[in-house]
């Protein structure tokens, strides 16, 4: 019995279902245990994204393919895949994930430059990584960051995030009225779509800078666990 319980385990229900399997067990045994678990999940399994994690560095492609077909067939799950970039889930990543438990970020030197106050015309603030301004950025002022930019006030000057070429970064302001925006190599002048009284952020979608409502889009939703920036 003990062995059975360890052959298949449901680890998490986050973005989808994360299931670890013991690849050394027979396919039949794995199918039987998967059936037990997925029956219990019932409707939740339908159209879900399933990740089958063998917890090894080998690929086990055939085994995963067979179990994948089985799950799609029996339980109508949407997709079945191996964990993303298995190989990069190194010691380093394990360590980062564990920070939640050991609170090692308390000993971490921050890569965020955080300033309180008003950035005025002619002033330029440059941060190697992320930049947070607890205040306003006036017309004629310039803020530049290698990472993300958060302005907890009004942004009326120029802002460049992901400088010089990181297109993943965002520029967020509670009052979003920039003169010019740059993300990676992309530039827009004026405010693409300003909504008074709304927190907005700029990001790159299909090679263009788009401005969206912050609360509706939650640009940080893509980050699954707390990480030191």
């Amino acid at each position: 019995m003990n062995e059975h319980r360890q052959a298949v385990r449901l680890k998490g229900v986050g973005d989808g279902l994360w299931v670890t399997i013991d690849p050394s067990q027979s396919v039949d045994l794995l199918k039987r245990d998967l059936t037990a678990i997925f029956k219990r999940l019932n409707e939740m399994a339908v159209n879900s994204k399933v990740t089958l994690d063998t917890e090894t560095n080998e690929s086990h492609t055939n085994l995963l393919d067979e179990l994948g077909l089985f799950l799609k067939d029996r339980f109508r799950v949407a997709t079945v895949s191996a964990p993303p970039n298995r190989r990069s889930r190194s010691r380093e990543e394990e360590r980062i994930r564990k920070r939640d438990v050991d609170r090692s970020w308390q000993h971490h030197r921050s890569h965020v430059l955080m300033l309180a106050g008003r950035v005025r015309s002619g002033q330029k603030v440059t941060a190697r990584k992320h930049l947070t301004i607890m205040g306003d950025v006036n017309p004629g002022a310039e803020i530049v960051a290698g990472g993300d930019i958060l302005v907890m006030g009004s942004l009326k000057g120029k802002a460049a995030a992901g400088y010089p070429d990181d297109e993943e970064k965002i520029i967020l302001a509670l009052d979003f009225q920039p003169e010019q925006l740059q993300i990676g190599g992309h530039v827009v002048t004026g405010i693409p779509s300003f909504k008074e009284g709304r927190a907005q952020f700029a990001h790159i979608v299909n090679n263009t800078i788009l401005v969206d409502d912050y609360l509706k889009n939650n640009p940080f939703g893509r980050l699954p666990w707390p990480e030191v920036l």
Partner: protein
Amino acid sequence: MEGKIIVVTSGKGGVGKTTATACIGAAMAMQGKQVVVIDMDIGLRNLDVVMGLENRIVFNIVDVVKGRCKIKQAAIKDRRIDNLFLIPASQSDNKDSLTPEDIIRLSKSLRGRFDYIFMDCPAGIERGFENAVAAADEALVVCTPEVSSIRDADRIIGLLYAKSITPKLIVNRIVPEMVARGDMLSHEDVVEVLSIDLIGLVKMDDKVVVATNTGLPLVLQKDSEAGNAFHRIAQRLNGQPNLPIENSDNGKGFWRSLGRKLRRRN
């Protein structure tokens, strides 16, 4: 006597620094203080003309600094207003003839002789500005309700803070009718961006030009709204910081009620 040095500056040219220096200096002298106004715009002197004293210039600020004359010889006494003196700029030198150290050295004797020393700063942020602010205790930033003027004032404010000087704001050349129509930024819009203490609002007033051309000081013209505004600024500087900014005689209270239509433009 331990006089106070106040620099009048703006960044942008032509917004009313010289006018403000002359008027506030004169108004302060009329309150019984010993006042000297100094033209720091070396090479482009102006303050003497605005004050109607250009014919009486013998020595200038560069002469004083270089030791070619005493402060007493260079300071021209105004004939109409007691206690008011002008030290003019030199027309033939350039701004590099003075250094910030020169001004700091000079400031000691100025402080001993006058209650208030107003420095009329040249436009720009180069040597002339450095000289004018070198010994300043306080700064008045003059700004008009225009985007370019606000931009330059903001730059100057950043530089003043970096020199541990906390500036106060004068918004000049306001045309209430244009503000009401939404064709001009209101002083609230200006203050919102610059976020420093406002010390005075001065309307656009034809009498300013008339005063310059006739030599009759604006602050002596009882019916000049701009002149009255400068009187109030002087009072606020001189121990009445809580005197309301609004002109009591204008009654309508339009300063408060004006629209914010242009807000998005700056």
